[in-house]
C-alpha cells in the first residue's frame, strides 16, 4: 500500500497562492507551515506579515496573523512578544520592507535581543510595486528604477543587512540560505527550524535571510531564475551561517 510521503502541510489553508509562477515566497510559506507542524507550535504561533507581495500571507497561514505597516514588522512583533512571552512570534519581511524602510526597527529589535524570529525574503527587487530597485539589488542588476543596471556610484551598494544584524549584540542566530534548489530548500528549512527553536529557548533575536527567486521582475524563466540565484546573487550574498550563538544552547 502506497504511503503518502509529501502533502500540503496542516497549517496552510487550502487557498491557492496568488504568487507568480516560480516565486520563492510560496516555497518559504510551505516550509514555515511544515516547521510549525513539526515543532507542534500551531496553537502558539503569531505571525506578522509585511507590506509587499507577502502581505497576503495571512490568507495562507492557518495561525494567528497580524498585519504590520510597511517595515515595522520587528516593532509589531516586539509588542506582541512582550505581552505574550510564551508564544512564538515571527515577522515575515521582504528586502524593501526590512532593509530600507524598516532598517531602524529591525536593527534595534536585534540589538535589544527581542526574542522573536524574522524571516527575511531577499529577492533583490520591490516585487509588488513592479520591480523597482531594492536595497539588496545587485550592482549592475536591472530594475525599473535603475535603467542600465544599478550603478553603485549613483544608486549606492547592495546592503548587507544580515551582516549588520550579526554585529548587534542581542542577535543570537543569523543565517543566509536560498530556495533555488531542493538542497538549498532543505537547508533553509533547517535554518528556520533552528531560528524558531532559539526563540522557544528564549535565547534572543534570530533571523533567516532567504535568497528567493522573483522570475517575473527578473524577467527570467523560473528555472533560469533559480540558476541566477546560484550564479549571481550568492556572489554578493554568500550562503552561510553569519552568526550562531545557539549551538549547544538549544534544548
Amino acid at each position, binding site marked *: *500500500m502506497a504511503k503518502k*510521503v509529501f502533502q*500540503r502541510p496542516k497549517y*496552510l489553508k487550502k487557498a491557492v497562492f496568488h*504568487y507568480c509562477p516560480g*516565486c520563492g515566497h510560496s516555497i518559504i510559506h510551505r516550509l514555515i507551515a511544515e516547521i510549525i507542524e513539526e515543532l507542534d507550535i500551531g496553537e502558539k504561533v503569531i505571525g506578522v506579515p509585511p507590506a509587499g507581495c507577502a502581505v497576503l500571507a495571512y490568507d495562507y497561514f492557518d495561525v494567528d496573523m497580524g498585519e504590520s505597516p510597511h517595515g515595522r514588522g520587528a516593532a509589531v512583533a516586539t509588542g506582541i512578544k512582550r505581552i505574550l512571552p510564551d508564544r512564538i512570534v515571527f515577522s515575515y519581511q521582504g528586502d524593501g520592507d526590512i532593509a530600507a524602510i524598516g532598517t531602524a526597527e529591525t536593527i534595534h529589535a536585534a540589538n535589544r535581543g527581542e526574542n522573536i524570529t524574522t524571516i527575511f525574503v531577499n529577492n533583490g527587487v520591490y516585487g509588488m510595486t513592479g520591480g523597482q530597485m531594492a536595497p539588496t539589488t545587485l550592482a549592475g542588476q536591472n530594475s525599473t528604477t535603475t535603467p542600465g543596471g544599478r550603478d553603485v556610484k549613483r544608486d549606492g551598494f547592495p546592503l548587507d543587512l544580515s551582516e549588520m544584524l550579526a554585529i548587534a549584540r542581542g542577535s543570537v542566530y543569523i543565517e543566509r540560505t536560498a530556495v533555488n*534548489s*531542493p538542497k538549498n530548500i532543505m537547508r533553509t528549512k533547517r535554518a528556520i527550524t533552528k531560528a524558531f527553536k532559539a526563540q522557544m529557548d528564549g535565547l534572543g533575536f534570530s533571523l533567516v535571510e532567504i535568497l528567493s527567486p522573483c522570475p517575473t521582475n527578473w524577467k527570467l524563466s*523560473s528555472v533560469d531564475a533559480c540558476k541566477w540565484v546560484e550564479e549571481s546573487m550568492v556572489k554578493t550574498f554568500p550562503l552561510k551561517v553569519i552568526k550562531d550563538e545557539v549551538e549547544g544552547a538549544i534544548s
Partner: protein
Amino acid sequence: MAKKTKKGKITIDRELCKGCYLCISVCPSHLIAVSDKLNQKGYYPAEYMETDSKEKNRKCTGCTMCAITCPDIAIEVYRG
C-alpha cells in the same frame, strides 16, 4: 543480491500548477513533462509520466525533490 529500488509515485494537481516547471528541472529520473493541454488558469501544467516508454529503467523513487521544489504544493508523493 538484487538491488532494491524504492518504488514511488507522484500526483500533480493540474489546476494548482502554474507552469514554472521547476519540478521538471529537478526530477532525477526525468519523469515529468509539460502537458499539451491548458489548465483553467491558462497554463500548460506539468504532467507525471507513469513510466517512461523509451527507457524502462527510469522509475519514480518517491524522492520528493519535485514536491519540495514545487512552489504551489501541486505535487503529492507516495512511496511503497
